């Protein structure tokens, strides 16, 4: 690859798109601000945080405290619920207006839906689920590191000729900066005209998960596999999750048995998570499951079979019956 600076120099500054979950700024936003700040400082440019929503103005100050120099905000009833068309169209207009050189988007369900549409509208490059981001100072290219083949291979990807460069980042992968209440920033309220006669109509947003934290943003996940033996024993997992303040994950086998809903499935045909602590209870560790959780910071595995695959990637292993071990763990933790 030639080291030439042959992209469009009109594009300037780093942007992060603010991610909301049920009207609240989700944690991935602060993580994006953390890595965005690093990239902006390295390039010597400003960091912008761009938010679309309704009744969100009072939340903008937080974005500055966590690293943004400029907050672009459009507070309008049309943005109350996430609408792929209206959001993508609006972000597209703002990008055309301000021309940022880098855009970071949270790899949430909404973010993963919107990012490829925006990149396609702009005919520019998009890199999914980056775990590392840096700047090549010579070319000013964004160096994007992402896992492929379920994390067994890492790839470094660049977008040398097109601007903006767009990347999505999964929740919990980057670190938020410490809040700095002395930080000052500017708030801009852009005016754009968009067609609100969308081909999408959001009828309802239904919350079904009872846990306080959702799986993709959870710091701790208690995950359950076949070793639970029967559905009735799930109550143990639920209790452990409750005392630890954890979200509940599951292997495909448990979901396919109908013991727990698909929204809990972690792995290749479920979701990918990277919590600080992952407690695998009675999970054998098929490669399809490992793909979805191997990037967890610390993995504790409990399994009857000392040869279980899960121990290949675990940090701490406990050979034993989860139905005996977990009640002890709950009892001692509570004591």
């Amino acid at each position, binding site marked *: *690859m030639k080291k030439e600076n042959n992209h469009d120099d009109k594009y300037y500054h780093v942007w992060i798109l603010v991610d909301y*979950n049920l009207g609240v700024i989700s944690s991935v936003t602060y993580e994006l601000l953390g890595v965005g700040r690093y990239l902006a400082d390295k390039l010597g440019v400003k960091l912008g945080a761009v938010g679309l929503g309704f009744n969100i103005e009072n939340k903008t100050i937080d974005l500055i405290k966590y690293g943004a120099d400029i907050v672009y905000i459009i507070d309008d009833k049309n943005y109350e*619920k996430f609408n792929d*068309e209206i959001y993508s169209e609006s972000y597209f207009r703002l990008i055309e207006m301000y021309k940022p050189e880098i855009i970071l988007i949270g790899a949430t*369900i909404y973010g*993963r*839906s919107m990012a*490829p*549409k925006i990149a*396609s509208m702009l*005919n*520019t490059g*998009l890199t*999914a*689920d980056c775990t590392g981001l840096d700047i090549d100072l010579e070319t000013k290219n964004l160096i994007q590191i992402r*896992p*492929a*083949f*379920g*994390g*067994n*291979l890492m*790839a*470094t*990807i*660049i977008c040398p000729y097109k601007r903006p460069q767009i990347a999505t980042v999964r929740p919990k992968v980057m670190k938020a900066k410490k809040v700095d209440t002395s930080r000052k920033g500017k708030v801009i309220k852009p005016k754009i005209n968009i067609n609100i006669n*969308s*081909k*999408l109509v*959001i*009828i*309802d*947003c*239904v*919350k*079904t*998960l009872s846990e306080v934290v*959702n799986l993709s943003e959870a710091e701790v996940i208690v995950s359950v596999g076949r070793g639970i033996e029967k559905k009735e024993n799930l109550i143990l997992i639920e209790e452990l999750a409750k005392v630890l303040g954890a979200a509940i994950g599951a292997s495909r086998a448990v979901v396919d048995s109908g013991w727990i809903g*698909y*929204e809990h*499935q972690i792995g*290749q*045909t*479920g979701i990918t998570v990277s919590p600080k*602590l992952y407690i695998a209870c009675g999970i054998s560790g098929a*490669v*399809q499951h490992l793909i979805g959780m191997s990037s967890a910071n*610390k993995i504790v*595995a409990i399994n009857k079979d000392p040869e279980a695959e899960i*121990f290949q*990637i675990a*940090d*701490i*292993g*406990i050979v*034993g019956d989860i139905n*005996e071990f977990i009640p*002890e*763990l709950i009892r*001692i933790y509570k004591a």
Partner: protein
Amino acid sequence: METLRSDELNIIVCIKQVPDTSNVDINKETNTLIRNGIGSTINPFDVYAVEEGLKIKEKLGGNLTTISMGIKSAEKQLKETTALGVDNTVLLNDKLFAGSDTLATAYILSMGIKKLKTYDLIICGKQAIDGDTGHIGPSLAEKLNIPHLTCVKKIEEFNEKFLICQRMTENGYDVVKMYLPALITVVKDINKPRFPTLKGKMKARNSASTIWDAYDILANREKCGLIGSPTKVLTTYIPKRKSKVEFINGTPKEQAQKLLDKLRISKK
């Protein structure tokens, strides 16, 4: 370009050939997938996309087409969909397509679909298990100038004008009405895929896919393959393996106590 729609319902399902990882093992020395002797298969999420297409067709009639961009051998996966009851299969195959990133792939698929002319609904899997990007569905919808919804777990209603879907979210699901023509990507929860019948397999054996190259679909070569891909893979490497597992021994009670001690220490 206005999308043409006919009286009959037309559904297109996009499928991808991926390495068959269901029997795969990790080489513990190099931490890579052992790929020797690994065959190829339909991307698992696409199987649910095909099934959803078949279900709609069974209810409302019409034509179901599967389309794939890939190497010649991807015709095998297209034939598998014929065995399940798909009417037509199209393979977009050209050396010019090699090395396409997700933007270029979406463009090529859009040109193939434009050549098919009529469609009401396009269904894709949520993502492919090799690249894991989930880009193709939304990017393709944009290239066709139609709306899309990702991670659909249920179609509540489907008629000639619109569909009402449940789309998964982190906390539950959204209920969304979307006007046709449109594109959805589906998750595993949406249905239980069928197996091919003997009759279907016979039909598949005697079937052939329509094969189109860049010229056939009027693709601009500047937008295909490596040239048409804004993202470039600079390097690839194998990530470092984690240190070895540390086992905690003892009675369940002792194990539980030691585990909590360890986790509390490492928290600081």
